[in-house]
């Protein structure tokens, strides 16, 4: 047994590791790193392609023009009615979804007994609602809002023709509100949980009631989180086309929508129409790219703001311990 009597003690942690080059480790780290890189590359290619090609044909005139009958003609077309329609339906949606979403989140964090089966049930329903295909929301909007609520409203109000029982900006917005409800609930809940319980306890100790504590102490603190939720919901809804296909979108309208029962034109739907129904795709390509760029700027600006607010909130939370 010729072992050296006293091997030199290792002077760094490194020499504990095997001296042999670990090929598997190197290979698989590289492989998973490559997968990460690939996803980032896909994102970059899509964005670059759209930004570079869309920027050339984007002009103020394009954004501020209402197209006359033929919107496939690059010289005279514009996207003003689509911008108005998309912004409008998203705005109406926010009015409906924010209160319901925030109140549900308040119940789940402040009131609900965390172990009760009902709470678990509500959470499961919220998660499930988030995974319902967008086209099913479209069918639901048609079957419930238009064919049930709208038609009964018509019968109730004795409207001369179908006023409520037909596709309209109101029904499209309500359908989208149902779809984005989980987004608002999850974001608000996260921000409510981030508030230290000490704040609530201090408020209660000073004699405030539970409701006063929620309204004056908890909600103001959670405001950035609620905003994030709203913004995420808006950016998700702004790009969705399937839920509005049967509930309100119009192929072409000469005028801007003026009431809740009007139909509307929409950016996302316009992208679909331009790319699948153009008589000459080479001719429409520039305006198609410009329309996509407008839509992307709208959704990405919103998404980015939400991510920034959220990152700031997480940092604050970490600072609070």
């Amino acid at each position: 047994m010729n072992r050296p009597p006293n091997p030199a003690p290792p002077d760094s942690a490194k020499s504990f590791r095997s001296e042999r080059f670990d090929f598997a480790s190197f290979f698989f780290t590289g492989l998973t790193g490559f997968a990460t890189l690939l996803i980032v590359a896909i994102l970059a290619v899509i964005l670059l392609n759209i930004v570079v090609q869309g920027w050339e044909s984007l002009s103020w005139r394009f954004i501020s023009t209402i197209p006359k009958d033929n919107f496939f003609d690059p010289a005279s077309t514009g996207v003003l009615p689509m911008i108005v329609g998309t912004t409008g339906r998203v705005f109406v949606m926010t009015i409906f979804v924010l209160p319901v979403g925030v109140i549900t989140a308040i119940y789940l964090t402040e009131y609900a007994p965390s172990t009760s089966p009902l709470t678990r049930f509500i959470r499961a329903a919220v998660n499930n609602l988030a995974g319902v295909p967008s086209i099913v929301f479209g069918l639901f909007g048609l079957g419930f809002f238009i064919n049930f609520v709208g038609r009964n409203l018509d019968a109730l109000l004795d409207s001369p023709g179908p006023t409520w029982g037909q596709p309209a900006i109101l029904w499209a917005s309500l359908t989208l509100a149902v779809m984005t409800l989980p987004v608002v609930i999850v974001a608000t809940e996260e921000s409510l949980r981030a508030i230290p319980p000490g704040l609530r306890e201090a408020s209660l100790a000073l004699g405030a009631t539970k409701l006063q504590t929620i309204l004056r102490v908890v909600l103001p603190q959670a405001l950035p989180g609620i905003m994030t939720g709203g913004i995420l919901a808006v950016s998700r809804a702004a790009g969705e086309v399937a839920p509005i296909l049967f509930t309100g979108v119009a192929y072409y309208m000469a005028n801007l929508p003026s009431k809740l029962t009007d139909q509307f034109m929409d950016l996302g739907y316009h992208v679909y129409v331009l790319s699948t129904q153009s008589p000459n795709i080479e001719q429409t390509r520039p305006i198609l790219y410009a329309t996509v760029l407008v839509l992307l700027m709208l959704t990405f600006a919103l998404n980015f703001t939400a991510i920034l607010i959220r990152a700031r909130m997480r940092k604050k939370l970490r600072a609070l311990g």
Partner: protein
Amino acid sequence: MGIQRGHRARPLEWLAERVIFTISLSAIMLILLIFIFVGREALPIFLGRMDSALIQETIPPERMNELDPEELRVYLDLSPRQFAGMDRDTLQMLMEVRQEALEEIPPEQLNDPDAHANTTAWRYLLFPHQWSDYDRPRYIWQPIGNIHKYNIVPLIVGSLKTTLIGLFFAVPISVGAAIYVSQLARPRVREIAKPTIELLSGIPSVVVGFFALLVMASVFQAVFQYETRLNAFVAGIALGFAVIPVVFSIAEDALTSVPRSYTQGALALGSSKWQAAWHIVLPAALPGVFAAVVLGFGRAIGETMIVLMVCSASVMSWSIFDSARSITTTIAAEMAEAVAGGHHYRMLFMLGAVLFAVTFVANLVGDIVIHRLKRKLEGRS
């Protein structure tokens, strides 16, 4: 969490609490409403109460007096409210219209056995049928013309085809990226990579569809040299783009929720970072990765716009380089031309109800698996 001290004695507090509780049930209510109202429009198909046969028995208008009101209402396919609002002449006219419709059928179709077939019956929906101008039984979805062919098998195959291609593409990449970002990457890289990948979910699906249609389809055709430019392969890969952020965030979340002590223990025993990730963390988080795949499946099979824009011809074929028409695409493309309340309309709602049921189960399974995993990892009973 939550405020433990209640003030139930105050009426206003009590009322507010009740209101908040009621509103918080909205998510459960909405799920129920979706079930009820999508199902309601599809119910006649499920129950086999719909009759789409071209040639239906007619009753001559002269015999109107012999029918009692209820029979007449059912014969004319009217709702009780509509029926109550009509006078005798209108009803008589409707009966004449029915009679005339029969007389307008082209004579060559009068002897066609298919003209008597109720094509919404389940055996026509699920099994191949030899239509009169075909030489062998086939699966056909063709809801146009006088005889609507409603075989849903090509649509199911189309949905599965595009979804599976999307998953085969997206799952390895997303899970790989999730392992890298959560276990192997340096913190700085992680802080940049995670939000960037999540940004991919911010691209609207109509934009992904547009990109696939205008750019990817041409590039892929040049690379793979196949015949049909727009096919299930392009649609599947584009679907993968939509699935990647879903699978990535759930898998990453599951991997991150494995306690740090697992990794630290493995590293202390001399394993490399990779070995700790592969042999310790991944097996512990495996149910979460499984849930990610299930939820990704739900996302892919429910995606509409991408498949709608990239390929829509309904062909019964398992080849990935043929076109495909998914369930979602069919609903989106055909609802505009379907008559409200007619058999085509109800058939599309039936497809929607089936789709909803499938994604509902997928979501439920995913949710339960994640819930169990978190509970186990957090050591709660």
